[in-house]
């Protein structure tokens, strides 16, 4: 059998029969390796996400085994593809339905900035309506890039302080998007 690599233990104190660490570290570790993504695939980048999900690139290796199509159980919103102005309220609605802690990954040029579609009907980047944690450039990005973006989100999840979401700074951020 091949050797199984397991995630490194967080910093802490260990002795005979015990291991002590902080909640931040332990929960961060657990969260980062079981991020359930909500694939919000609208266009071309969604096809690349299909490749990412398939056997060749296999996003499951990074703990995203289960794409959660219900926002209520999702941790990570992956917005892939152009978001038209008609679609914008839907994206926001989906984001609002997600429970904290939630992360957002903008995959592709269109989701990040509107991309080549600087037109009357396209939203110029989803960060105009919801806060974004990580941007993946490319039109469309390669599956490796999408996985790289996911790993950045894992890093964020791992190193986030548990109370970060209660800070004033975070509340201000949400308030700037008119999210309560």
């Amino acid at each position, binding site marked *: 059998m091949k050797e199984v690599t397991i995630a490194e233990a967080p910093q802490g104190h260990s002795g005979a029969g015990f291991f002590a660490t902080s909640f931040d570290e332990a929960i961060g570790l657990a969260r980062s390796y079981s991020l359930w993504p909500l694939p*919000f695939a*609208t*266009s*071309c980048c*969604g*096809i*690349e996400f*299909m*490749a990412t999900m*398939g*056997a*060749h690139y296999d996003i499951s290796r990074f703990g995203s085994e289960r794409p959660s*199509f219900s926002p209520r159980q999702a941790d990570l919103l992956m917005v892939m*593809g*152009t*978001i*038209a102005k*008609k*679609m914008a309220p*839907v994206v926001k609605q*989906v984001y609002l339905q997600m429970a904290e802690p939630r992360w957002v990954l903008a995959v592709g040029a269109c989701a990040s900035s509107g991309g*080549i*579609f600087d*037109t*009357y*009907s*396209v939203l110029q980047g989803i960060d105009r309506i919801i806060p974004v944690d990580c941007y993946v450039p490319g*039109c*469309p990005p*390669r599956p490796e890039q999408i996985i790289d973006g996911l790993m950045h989100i894992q890093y964020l999840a791992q190193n986030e302080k548990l109370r970060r979401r209660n800070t004033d700074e975070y509340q201000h951020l949400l308030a700037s998007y008119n999210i309560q």
Partner: protein
Amino acid sequence: MAEIELLPHNVPSQAELPELVEELTTLNLGPTHPATHGIFQNILKMDGEKIVSGEQTIGYIHRAFEKIAERRPFYQITTLTDRMNYCSSPINNFGWHMTVEKLLQIEVPKRAQYIRVIMMELARISDHLICNSILGVDTGAFSGFLYVMQKREDIYEIYEEVCGARLTTNMGRIGGMERDLSTTAIRKIRDFIKTFPPVLQEFEKLMSRNRIFMDRTINVGGISLERALSYGFTGPNLRAAGLDYDVRVMNPYSSYEDFDFSIPIGQSGDTFDRYNVRIEEMWQSLKIVEQALNNLPEGPYYADAPEYYLPPKKEVYNNMEALIYHFKIVMGEIDAPAGEVYHAVEGGNGELGFYLISDGGRAPYRLHFRRPSFIYYQAYPEMCKGSTLSDAILTMSSLNVIAGELDA
């Protein structure tokens, strides 16, 4: 013992009963429903599990292709066609190039035409693979999807070898191809021709005669030929309804007349027929790729059209004339002749038409895309009327509606 007074048993008459009201449920299918593969909304009126009527909303990724096209030089429009039907973008791109070549009356060399055919047929295979494997996923068979996705990666590797990109494959130019097929590309295509049939056979074994799959798809989402024509069906969906209309045969472009292939047709136009037509088309496409590769003519891979085809870099640095052309093409300073062209190619979903009006300027005056899935998707409520919700999902995925093409 006291006598018990028996009360008359009071049975209400039929007229006194409260009237039973049949209540219809409204179900919002989409725009982010996981089973819709792309974003479009269907507001379904349901009687229990039966669909009574449906109302469609589309336009959730309307990106204004036609408006952008009016502001871009001809060679930049491939960035739009790339992203139209993103499952088979080479067909869109070459379709556009052929439209411009028709306007300019450029004769493309045979070699370029054959390379185009190879690429277009590979694109058709990848398009149909996605459609049929997703149809499998919707019936609950996930493994078929995983098998064929692996082969789609091989097609993407061929694209990468030819042009460097996986999905948005800008590999053609007005007048020919951007570059010749490299030996690696040819080897990869040969490998694909060899390794794809076992996988497709395996996929067929998994699905085609699978009792569950047959029960789920036969007589589901059918449409009669007459209605299909009225609704403007083209491509595999029309052929499944029983008409052998294929642009490749009726109006051959890019040397399709040189190849020997047949057009599969269905009978009842149901989901099973659509699936079978797509499977058979993949075999035919493979046949065309093989023929084109074996008979690949020697010669140049681009036409002599210096005003539209970028000169080689070496020439640009050493030759004044080439430098001028290079500058003019890149800056989009070439005036195209005035004219009006309609050119159609057989896209992954049907007749993909380009209606181009040029007023003699540097950009199209008007460019309209005839997007097959936009036109036939309007038949969907009629097709799923009276069927159950789970069947309606299959009907939708077998129609292969691509959101980017639908909304333009």
